[in-house]
């Protein structure tokens, strides 16, 4: 019998990172889980995938009226609708992906206790399936950009980088929160307002240039800042302010790596503490 088909089950206590070989083995399942999430999300709705557009559009309209027209926040001369659209779309992804992945283990607890597959697939599935909503809502961003006749610039080269940071940020947070949520259900109750607060820690409704210089570094440790700033520069062609961006890149990576370690350290007790 081939040796590579041997499974060893032991009581282990060490730290583990992603077992790529195992994940590759389960790629078909991963695909089906993502596909299921997408398929089921808008089942029995009248609007279907248009919901992915309606949500950010409504938010853009509200923000444009309140912060653009009433509060008249400074946007460095960019029309407010344009200014908020390119921020709300990645933010909607981040908040929804974090929300869904943090609950992924709890909502999958029935499966968790009945069958084995790499536990990392639970949060990963949410992170990936939410990308479909993101892709659809990007249509809104493109339409708005066309309406305001924003020309594409070379900054777009960096766009994939910011999508990656966006996903890593959501995934890292999702890993931490999902592992925590299975032990402490408080996570579920804290989620809505923590996410709402998190929105104001990033330059979504206001401009990052309104942050005083001396706080700039601390401010930009937040990886969401880096994602939003990156999206603005790439889509609107404003200059890339790396000062706001690079700390967030490092934080998002750190968040992801530590999240994997934390998740994998706790995964052996998931079933026992459900």
């Amino acid at each position, binding site marked *: *019998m081939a040796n590579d*088909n*041997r*499974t*060893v*089950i*032991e*009581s*282990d206590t060490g730290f583990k990172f992603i077992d790529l070989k195992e994940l590759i083995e389960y790629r*078909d*399942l991963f*695909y*089906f*889980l993502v596909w*299921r999430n997408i*398929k*089921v999300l808008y*089942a*029995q709705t009248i609007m279907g995938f248009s919901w992915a557009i309606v949500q950010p559009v409504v938010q853009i309209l509200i923000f444009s009226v309140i912060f653009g027209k009433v509060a008249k926040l400074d946007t460095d001369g960019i029309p407010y609708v344009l200014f908020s659209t390119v921020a709300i779309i990645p933010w909607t992804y981040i908040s929804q992906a974090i929300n869904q992945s943090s609950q992924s283990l709890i909502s999958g607890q*029935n*499966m*968790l*206790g*009945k*069958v*084995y*597959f790499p536990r990392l697939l639970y949060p990963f599935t949410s992170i990936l399936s939410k990308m479909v909503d993101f892709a659809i809502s990007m249509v809104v961003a493109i339409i708005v950009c066309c309406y305001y006749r924003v020309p594409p610039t070379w900054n777009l080269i960096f766009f994939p980088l910011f999508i990656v940071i966006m996903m890593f940020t959501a995934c890292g947070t999702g890993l931490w929160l999902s592992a925590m949520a299975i*032990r*402490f259900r408080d996570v579920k109750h804290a989620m809505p307002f923590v996410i709402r607060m998190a929105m104001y820690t990033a330059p979504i409704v206001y401009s990052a240039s309104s942050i005083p210089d001396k706080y700039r570094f601390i401010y930009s440790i937040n990886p969401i800042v880096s994602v939003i700033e990156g999206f603005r520069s790439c889509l609107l062609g404003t200059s890339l302010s790396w000062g706001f961006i690079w700390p967030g890149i490092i934080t998002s990576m750190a968040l992801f790596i530590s999240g994997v370690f934390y998740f994998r350290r706790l995964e*052996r*007790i998931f*079933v*026992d*503490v459900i």
Partner: protein
Amino acid sequence: MLSIKVENLGKRYRIGLKEEQHESLFNLFLAFLKSPIKNYKTYRSLYSFSETSGSKAFIDDEKNGIIWPLKGLNFEVNKGEVVGIIGKNGAGKSTLLKVLSRITHPTTGRVEAFGSISSLLEVGTGFHPELTGRENIYLNGAILGMRKKEIDNKLDQIINFSGVHKFIDTPVKRYSSGMKVRLAFSVAAHLEPDILIIDEVLAVGDAEFQKKCLNKMEDAGKQGRTVLFVSHNMPAVTRLCPRAIFLENGKIVDDGPSQKVVANYLSKDSGTTAERIWKNTLNAPGSDIARLRGLRVMSKSGQVTESIDIREPFSIDMEYEILKSGSILLPHHHFFNGEGIHVFTTLDTDPQWRLKPRPKGSVKSTVWIPGNLLSEGNYMVGSGMITLNPEIPQFYENPAISFTVIDTIEGDSARGDFTKNIDGVVRPLLKWNNQYH
């Protein structure tokens, strides 16, 4: 060839989240203020163990709510073996399956398994009501460890086997529960792992479905797969599994040929498989109408016996208490042979009590089984009680008792002078006549 090797396998849990009692409103309020810290500590303690508390010595520590459902198991299973795992509730069977299927982590020891493992602790894991039957086949198949290609190849077989091809593109939420189970089972039935781990909860459902499950298991064994089968269904274990492991209190009590192990399991409390007595009314099967107190296999001469001479009649005694008068009671027994075949059922037909409400009291119902009826071999008896008008089961214990029928070679039984193995579920002694023309 070795398939599974289990060494010193132990699992520790912490249970016991006790609710606190509060004596006054003030205490309640105080506790409310302190509760976040207390809750944090309790929920944390669910998985952290100080090494002094029970350490790794497999000692249950009830004070601290620590239990060891598995206490250092050692066994090996060879490739192609079909092994039944039996034991009472709480003996550690389910925990063992969960460790072997990697759902939960062991605390001590290790398991080495050679080949792919699939576990069926439930059918239809991951079924989504919004998805169609076809989509659920893919999803469920992948969850159970099949590759997409594999499912593509078997899709037609799976759909045919399930018998729901008419509705295969309908969302599963519109299915009847029976259709759902059939679809789920046919996915499971097409798994082809090297090692198959099955929980008997699988065998819930109607009789036909149970039979399908058991047949499927039999096939798996014949195809050279290693099968571990947890069950309370002793006839099924002796029929399907040449070998059985008997767990009690987290330890292996017996491991060997299943006939022997099952007999050991059944006779564990009374020393004989032919008698069961419930001394403690708390754990006796029953309702507020009738409660079972004892069951016995009795020889013709009135002795409790495990072995019955095939030629002799014998009786089954059922002792029970009627706690509430006024019900029409119907004691009954089901007889299963060693292959798990339901040989016959007998219901109380005593003319004295037919359709008559019975008064309170302790009762012994005796039924006589004639000689020269059953074939030789092991039998298990499931005994129960129902009330009539309306029909409500009051208790049912299966298997309750067991016995062995032994054929003689003295020539006056149905085998006559033939000494080799004879097939057949029953072995009546019939009248033969020969005539030359």
